[in-house]
């Protein structure tokens, strides 16, 4: 088989492969990083002391998969329906609030929400308006 213009053709193929495979080798190694989120904030430890266990507003598996939906439902229930109490499947009542609910317990936003969101490459814009908890790293830097 005869290939015309061998040089440019192979160069082209190499450049094409380099570009097409960029996402793979760029992320190489990073995907294996273990997700390390912490639920040991003062508020959660305090809750554990009083109630004998750590728990979220819904079971952990549900929270992991569905918190974005839940949080949007909370938002609509509060802002559009004027309701502020959430009655969970675990039979408890929670204050439906991002700043005064979720973030009171998960006050380690960087090591919790951000840690996972960075890992998953999602970037919620909520913090343009909602005020983030003050964290130690922030005051040091």
């Amino acid at each position, binding site marked *: 088989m005869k290939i015309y213009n061998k040089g440019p053709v192979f160069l082209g193929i190499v450049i094409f492969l380099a570009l097409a495979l960029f996402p793979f080798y760029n992320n190489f190694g990073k995907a294996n990083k273990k997700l390390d989120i912490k639920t040991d904030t003062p508020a959660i430890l305090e809750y554990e002391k009083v109630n004998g266990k750590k728990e979220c507003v819904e079971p952990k598996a549900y929270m992991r998969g569905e918190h974005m*939906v839940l949080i949007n439902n909370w938002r609509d229930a509060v*802002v*559009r329906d004027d309701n*502020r109490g959430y009655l969970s499947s675990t039979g408890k009542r929670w204050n439906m609030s991002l700043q005064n609910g979720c973030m009171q317990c998960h006050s380690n936003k960087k090591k919790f929400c951000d840690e996972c969101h960075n890992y998953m490459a999602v970037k919620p814009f909520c913090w343009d308006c909602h005020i983030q908890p003050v964290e130690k790293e922030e005051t040091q830097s």
Partner: protein
Amino acid sequence: MSMDRRKFLKVAGISSILGFGASVASATHPTWQPALRPDQMDRNKEALTAKRWAMVVDMTRFKTEEDFTKTINACHTIHNVPDFRKPDGTVDKKFEIKWIWNTTYEKAFPGMEERKYQSEHIKDMPFMVLCNHCTNPACVRVCPTKATYKLATGITMQDMHRCIGCRFCMAACPYGARSFNWIDPRRAANLDPAKGGKVNKEYPTRTKGVVEKCTFCTERLAVGKMPACVEAAPKGALIFGDLDDPSSEIRQIVSNKLTIRRKPELGTGPAIYYLIGGGDHA
């Protein structure tokens, strides 16, 4: 494919009937429903509720400059309202955001001829104005995303999450009660920690590109508190209550005294009533 005239008309007729049916279905189907079931949410026990929240502003109780500023500041601090200033310290009108503010009698009640001979005291004094939480609000009618709407308690609410910043509501509001965020409010000296500012951590700020206004403190009513301005104003200057309740203080005042409202002739049904002195039943 070819189609004779008769067949074409049949097909066109049937599809327009179907199309009409679809438009009726979408018009009768509610456009927004809460995603949580009723048994998944409730109101706080301590929440203050009403059929029709309204306010009486008793102008005779505002005596000094201080009486106004402390009322305004209470609201603006709690709600993280930015305070943009020019280098010389005066309010930067270009970027000003206001939920409750002062204006003049002439501007608040334009064309009230019969009030021309009002006492100088009233004519010269600053007038406290805020969103009128109208019964028939123009802003709600024009909002293309339903970001502003009526709550069952009579409050004209603003959903910051839906606001696209088109500013139709600002054009529609006859009271100038809405402000647009031209720049990031967190840059204001009173909110930016780098400039010595401080935010209320229990309430969000807003962001560049949304419209905001007074919400009658829905977040405070929900926990059994009166609106911030009512608490901070001189005693009896702002009377907040349920206009629908015949025994409420506000209803007593509105039925027994001469109160005026801003531009009622426009038919928006404002819910802020002004007492400007001059005794009972003038």
